[in-house]
Structures are given as C-alpha cells and as structure tokens.
C-alpha cells in the first residue's frame, strides 16, 4: 500500500471524523488529495506534536478526531502516547515507511515494540510523485474553522 491509498482508506473508514495530518509528505499529499473544503487540518510544522494537537482537539469536541502521521513524527511524539488515555474519541494512525521521506529517506529506528491497542500502524511504500507545497497556514486554519464550526 502506498501513502495515497492509506490516507484514502482511513478517510473512508471515518465518514464523520475530523482529520489532522502531520507536517511533511503526509500533509502535502493529503492536501493534494482532499483539498481544503472539509474537516481537515494540515500541520506545516510541529514535528512530533500531531498526536498532541489531536488529543487537545478531541478533549473539547464530541466528534471523532483522527490523527494521521508518519513514523518519524510518531517517534518524536512518543512521550505523548500515554495522553491518549485522556480521550476516547481519538483514532491514531501511523504511516510507517521506516524512514524520514521528506528529508531524503534517512532511516527511522524501529519502535514498533512500543505499540499498544490504540496504535494503528500501517506499513506503506512511498509514492513516486512529490506533492506540491501546501497552501499557507492562514488559509488552512480558516478553511478548517469554517468546515467544523460554520
């Protein structure tokens, strides 16, 4: 499975979800696939902080929040995994290609031994195309707010 198929499958699985994507290729590809008109929040920075953003969002909403991030991001955010127990309405997906694809394919050390029942790890192959630079942050947040708060 490639990153595109993984993202499409997850989005299809959560029709009422609010989605947060990690910075780097995950956001770039997701914004190209899904656009801005929907419950999608795209991080442009904040490596290792995607899950925490999702937990904070889920803490104050009754809807399902779905966090999708790469394995490099997930590794940096490992210290935030215990906080998942603070919220029930959160689904967490790691797209695992074993490398930091955005910065040139450097290896990510294997940390799958730490997974628990809240971790949905999906092994992926990288897509060949490099998606374009995502839209500016102001547009991302304004579109997101309009989509979920009206």
């Amino acid at each position, binding site marked *: 499975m490639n990153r595109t198929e993984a993202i499409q499958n997850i989005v299809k699985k959560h029709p009422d979800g609010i989605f947060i994507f990690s910075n780097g290729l995950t956001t770039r590809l997701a914004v190209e696939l899904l656009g801005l008109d929907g419950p999608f929040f795209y991080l442009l920075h904040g490596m290792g902080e995607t899950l925490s*953003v999702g937990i904070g969002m889920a803490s104050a909403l009754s809807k399902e929040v779905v966090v999708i991030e790469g394995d490099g991001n997930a590794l940096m955010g490992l210290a935030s995994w215990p*906080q998942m127990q603070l919220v029930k309405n959160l689904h967490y997906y790691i797209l695992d290609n074993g490398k930091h694809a955005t910065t040139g394919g450097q290896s990510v050390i294997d940390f799958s031994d730490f997974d628990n029942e809240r971790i949905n790890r999906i092994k992926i192959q990288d897509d060949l195309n490099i998606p374009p630079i995502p839209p500016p942050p102001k547009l991302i947040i304004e579109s997101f707010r309009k989509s979920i708060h009206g």
Partner: protein
Amino acid sequence: MTSHQFVSELMIHADWFSGIPDSVFKKILPKLDPFYPASRENHAIAMGFGASLSKKKPAILIQNSGLGLSLDALFGLNQLYEVGVLLIISNRGELEWEEIQHKSWGKRTMDLLNLCNITTFDLNELGSCAVEKAAKSAFNDQKISAIIVHRGNIDE
C-alpha cells in the same frame, strides 16, 4: 497573592489547562479543571493548540526551563497559524538562594521571551490584573502571551 485568588482569576479567563508541574504551582495545579497533564512542555502547548481549534481558551503552566522544549511548538503551531495561547511561566533561578541548576534559566528567561516576541505580563508588577491583561492579549489579540510568576508571588 493566594493560590485561591490566582486560580479564581485564571478560571474566569481560561477554560482549559495543561502543563508540567513546578513547585511554584504546587497549590495551583490541583485546583485547575479541566487539567490535561503532559509529558513534555511542547506536547502541553500542542494539546492547547488543539483545544483552541475546538474553541477553548487554553492556559499552559510551565517552568522557565520548559521554554526550551516549548519554542518549536509555539513557533510552528501558535505563531504560524496566528492562534493565541496563555502561558504561565515560573521564573526559577532568579533568587540568590535557589539551586544552581536553575540559574542559567533565571538569567536568560526575560531576554529569551523578548527575543521570541512573546508578550509578557509580570505578576509581581501587575498583581491579579496580569491575568486579565494576558488573557486579553492571548484570546482577543491571538498572541502568545506569558504571565511571569516570580517565586513568592503566590503562596506555596
């Protein structure tokens, strides 16, 4: 100022709390509700950012040393998307008798905050008004705004 007074004022202006414990906040932290404990300061900031996206007004309590771990989240989330946050920072290491490991931060905290364009509100100078002013800056003006708490400002 008593911890009760500080908490009462804070809970008027903020409605979501996270952070990393410090002895200066010993009596404050158990009174804050809802409180979402974090493992690292950047994750506290990031959770607060997420709560903001759900229309909450987050306040994050950290030691000055936690600024080191916080900056990338503050720049890469709050500053980038222009979302304000209320920080409450204990300025450890300013006083003669404090332990040596706090001194580097005690010397540099205010300079670092100024360098990072973080607006500060000094609890020692402003008293309880600091909370209202900082909250207005954070949630009306959408700026990263910090209340600076000096050891002795709040009962421990």
